[in-house]
């Protein structure tokens, strides 16, 4: 029982995702908005798993989303005539995970030896670097990108392909969001989380205490990268059925992930969800009222948050409820 109680903070998360999914299924007209919100929740949660827990910012994070889209694209584009049916999607997800693991190992091997500013410098070009590798060496059609809607239709039939793009891709996103939340909580509640907390507070002290900080940083870095890869495979590749290196490696998603995590509160479990809802809804309405101004409005918001409320919404709320029964459920 006590073992289970450790994991009670997952309940509000499941509740939030359940309500979102329920609204989406009940009002098909709003499915696009719900899918967008779920994507932001998942992105925030995946980003937070590394940034929130370690205090390191990975400015090249979108590269993992990008290689993930290629995982799905490669699977459908090259294997569609092998009679695999829906297995293609599964292979796509596996490839996305493999690609993002590979890239995160390569980047992590250099970047995770470095600290603070140097880490940021090492990661800031990862998305651009990989984009230019794809374009320069003409890997996977290079700058021409891959369009595979025809391949997907041939492999699974028109109806199924349609359902995959319009609905199942988003359901997978929900799955990734839940997975990210569960992993975050599991990490928080065992050695990985404790080690990372120690490292975030004082890396030298943590090392002196005999904590293998590099090992735990790598664990968090790879997990966070794989989740991003899965998101790219589902929310981008499977949904849109095309991939262009110019689009998938754009720094936009990194900016959005940072905004979401800071709005909600870095290093908390519920934070990314709260941040994603605030950001998602504001972006949705801003797109109607002031199209094209979203980033111009949110970039100053980041500065205001870091200067005035570094704990974010959930961080502040957590302080408010300290000592009440709610405390067990909100972290």
């Amino acid at each position, binding site marked *: 029982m006590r073992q289970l109680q450790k994991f009670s903070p997952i309940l509000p998360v499941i509740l939030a995702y359940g309500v979102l999914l329920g609204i989406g299924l009940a009002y098909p007209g709003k499915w696009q908005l719900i899918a967008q919100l779920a994507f932001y929740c998942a992105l925030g949660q995946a980003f937070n798993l590394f940034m929130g827990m370690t205090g390191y910012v990975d400015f090249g994070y979108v590269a993992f989303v990008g290689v993930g889209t290629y995982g799905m694209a490669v699977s459908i584009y090259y294997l569609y005539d092998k009679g695999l049916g829906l297995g293609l999607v599964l292979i796509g997800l596996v490839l996305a995970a493999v690609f993002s693991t590979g890239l995160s190992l390569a980047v992590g091997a250099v970047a995770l030896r470095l600290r603070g500013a140097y880490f940021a*410098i090492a990661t800031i070009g990862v998305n651009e670097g990989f984009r230019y590798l794809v374009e320069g*060496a003409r890997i996977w059609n290079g700058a021409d990108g891959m369009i595979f809607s025809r391949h997907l239709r041939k492999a699974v039939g028109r109806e199924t392909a349609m359902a995959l793009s319009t609905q199942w891709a988003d359901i997978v996103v929900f799955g990734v969001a839940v997975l990210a939340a569960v992993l975050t909580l599991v990490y928080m509640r065992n050695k990985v989380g404790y080690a990372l907390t120690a490292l975030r507070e004082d890396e030298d002290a943590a090392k002196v205490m005999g904590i293998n900080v590099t090992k735990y940083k790598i664990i968090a870095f790879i997990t966070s990268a794989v989740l991003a890869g899965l998101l790219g495979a589902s929310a981008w590749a499977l949904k849109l059925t095309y991939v262009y290196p110019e689009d998938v490696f754009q720094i936009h998603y990194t900016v959005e992930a940072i905004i979401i995590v800071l709005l909600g509160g870095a290093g908390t479990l519920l934070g990314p969800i709260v941040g994603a809802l605030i950001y998602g809804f504001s972006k949705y309405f801003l797109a109607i009222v002031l199209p094209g101004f979203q980033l111009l409005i949110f970039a100053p918001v980041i500065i205001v948050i870091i*200067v005035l409320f570094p704990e974010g919404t959930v961080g502040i709320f957590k302080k408010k409820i300290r000592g009440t029964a709610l405390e067990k459920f909100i972290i």
Partner: protein
Amino acid sequence: MIFEQLSGNLLQGVVLGGVYGMATMGLSLIFGVLKVVNVGHGAFIMVGAYVALILFQTLGIAPPLAVPVALILGMALGMLFYYTSIKKLLKGPELASLLATFSIGVILEEVCKQLFTSEARGYHWDLDKLDLGFTVLPYSKLIAFGGSILVGLLLYLWFHKTRAGMAMRSVVEDDEGARVCGINVDWEYALSFSIGIGLTVVSGVLLTMFIPVGINPYMGGGYTLKAFVIAVLGGLASPYGAFFGGLVFGLIENGSYTLFAQIPGLEPFAMTRFFSFVMLLVILLIRPTGLLRGK
């Protein structure tokens, strides 16, 4: 044939590299004094490029005359951002100042997008060309190169021959000690941030001589990456190191372009940019304190 092409490209590389070096001095100055990495560095270069473009197109002002305008605008922006955000974050974790400078970059990009649309633009400053036989150098590029060296020289003189410059150097050496000696360290921080940004915006003006049509609000990202490669080449905290790093980088960039162009099936332009990223990782792996610096 290839050697003639290579030597021509290398000479072009030195000329471009000098401007790259100057474009990185601001980054190194800010890191040296404040220990803040300006992740939005490229956005300030972009602002400089627009200053040159707008002054040239609307008022017909030649780019060298846009330099003082860019310097004043850049220093003003530097002061503005320093006092509204950076100052409050110096004591906080590194994460805070990184996110702040990153957001400043995004703000600048979005403001420029609203002002000038995201369409890529350019201008043509028609000057004569210097024909050397194996390569042709337009005088506009030579002026940019000369301007960069001049700026670097002025910065050196300012640091070594004036009291204000020496005060700033003392802050780099030991800010506690400088404080004890009666130097207003907070003001030195503000001033160096502002000068750093001013230099960066000026470099944007000079860089437009090398980019005939590529001026757009999002052009900065590539320059941020290049500036980081250059800065780690020369030692992150040293403006002069940055200058020499720039020369080396210009050589490597143009040299590798020529070589990649020999390999069929590769896009030399994109491969060069990929290569500069790989170079960054390799330098950080071997010697994060900078290759060009002594022990």
